[in-house]
């Protein structure tokens, strides 16, 4: 069983003044396990970047606590500086007019490390990240993917234990996304680094993460292992291809009797969230009685379907905004 490296408790953050206040994080609580890759999922405006900035000290939360290895890093800021790094979105983490090597030297010096470029660890990191050819290249001349590699080199050089990547796949083509995925797996395995990745790319998150926290309008909808996410609605996302015509009465009846349903009359598809197979049988009987015949049933069983369901559920339950 893993140990929590970070605990976030009741984190609350608002922007604006008393008259016009927007809640961006609403009592957010979850744990991050040591040596895992933890995904932060959510749509634009869900609060992912705000949460990350609160963790690394770029934003001051209104209330709540953030513990890193049981130390409150909102109070002990040096612990945070020594252990947590962030790669913010947009490949803007390094000085563009400096070379990769100069950036590494500068940032390691800020952490009290000198002559880093002569150490074995530096050589190992250069080899590991395959950045030897770009060491003396100015960051402004690097591609987005290579800038990320260079930023990771800085993070590794400074020996951070927790690295946070904010939307790392934005602007990356599929080739670089795959490279990044492999690299993050390697980093976790070989350096025992804990990684937090925020993204709205569910495929990327489901592929890379062990754990996941789903945010919606500043609220944690669910936090847990990716397999938990997939299983929580146990094969619950069904796509039914029907034959026949639905009249308005049928549609009203289906929508009244079935909780979460989406009907596409053009493609003759009914998309439905239902908790178990018994209920599905019930639903098919119901449709049969309505003279609707099911040609094919598809069962969606992935993180994407679970998250869509979770978000729909949250909305239908009047999720706190």
């Amino acid at each position, binding site marked *: 069983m893993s140990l929590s490296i970070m605990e976030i408790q009741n984190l609350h953050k608002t922007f604006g003044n008393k008259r016009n206040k927007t809640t961006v994080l609403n009592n957010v609580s979850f744990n991050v396990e040591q040596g895992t890759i933890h995904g932060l999922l959510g749509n634009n405006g869900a609060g992912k970047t705000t949460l990350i900035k609160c963790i690394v000290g770029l934003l001051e939360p209104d209330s709540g606590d953030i513990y890193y290895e049981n130390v409150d890093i909102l109070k002990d800021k040096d612990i945070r500086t020594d252990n947590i790094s962030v790669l*913010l979105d947009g490949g803007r983490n390094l000085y563009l007019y400096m070379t990769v090597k100069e950036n590494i030297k500068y940032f390691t010096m800020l952490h009290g490390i000198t002559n880093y470029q002569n150490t074995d660890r530096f050589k190992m990191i250069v080899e590991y990240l395959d950045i030897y050819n770009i060491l003396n290249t100015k960051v402004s001349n690097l591609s987005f993917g290579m800038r990320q590699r260079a930023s990771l080199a800085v993070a590794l050089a400074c020996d951070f234990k927790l690295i946070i990547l904010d939307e790392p796949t934005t602007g990356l083509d599929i080739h670089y996304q795959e490279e990044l995925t492999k690299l993050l797996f390697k980093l976790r395995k070989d350096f025992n680094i804990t990684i937090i990745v925020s993204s709205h790319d569910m495929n990327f998150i489901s592929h890379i993460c062990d754990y996941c926290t789903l945010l919606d309008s500043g609220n944690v909808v669910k936090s847990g292992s990716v397999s938990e996410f997939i299983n929580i609605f146990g094969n619950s996302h069904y796509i039914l291809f029907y034959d026949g015509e639905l009249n308005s009465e049928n549609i009203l009846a289906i929508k009244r009797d079935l909780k979460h349903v989406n009907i596409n009359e053009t493609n003759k598809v009914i998309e439905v969230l239902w908790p178990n197979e018994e209920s599905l049988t019930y639903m098919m009987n119901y449709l049969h009685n309505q003279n609707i015949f099911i040609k094919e049933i598809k069962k969606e069983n992935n993180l994407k379907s679970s998250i869509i369901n979770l978000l729909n559920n949250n909305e239908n339950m009047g999720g706190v905004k």
Partner: protein
Amino acid sequence: MVYLYTAFASAYKELIYKKRYFFNTLFSMIMFYIIFFLIFNGYSLIANRSQLSPLNLGTSLSGIVVSYYAWTMILSIYTSTAYIVQQNQQFGTLENIMVHSKNLSFLLVSENLVNMLFYFVFSWINIFVFSKISNISLYINFFTVMYIIVIGLISVLGISLVMAGISLIYKQINNFMNIMQFLLLGILFLKDTIISRLFLPFYQANKLLQDSFIKNLTFKNFTIHDHLLLNLNAIIFLTIGLIVFKKCLNKAKIKGTLNFY
């Protein structure tokens, strides 16, 4: 120890920056010389027309040369911190240096001190060029001038931190900074009182610079009173600068204005 390395890191980064953008630095120096040429000739013209006595004119012109020299030094430091903050905000690196640095104020102050030393070296070229343009000879007391400049500019560093703090919240404050830089020039010509020597940035330093360059006074010739005013002025403004910067940084963290634009 980390603070020492922070200072090294600042020096390292600033040297790279100065090397990469050497021509920009050079042209800003040339601009100072052109402005000085225009101001000096304009003043001479007005002074001749109003028929000032040669003695008065000579003293006033020396005063102008030294005050202008002081102003160039003030500007190099005054704009520096806010410029570093704005530049980092525009590049998007401000957030990253905040994550990596244990004390942002110290990082900015040390970057500025490196700038100060850099400009101090340049300042000797300045004073040489200014005295050649004006055909006025000045006394050169290297260590005395260095002492006055370093302590005097600490008060300007305080103002610079205030500006940097404001720019953290309001981001674009260039016009305000432009007005302030001429205000700082005007301050140097205000009436000499104990209040102005204590509570105006670089005022006392400017007076001591004039004493050194024009009257050939050195460190040893200054009274304790002079030293006290110079150092107290620096402490007052640096303290104000650090407090305001910290308050502004906290405010920016609450309002979320640190991100790049």
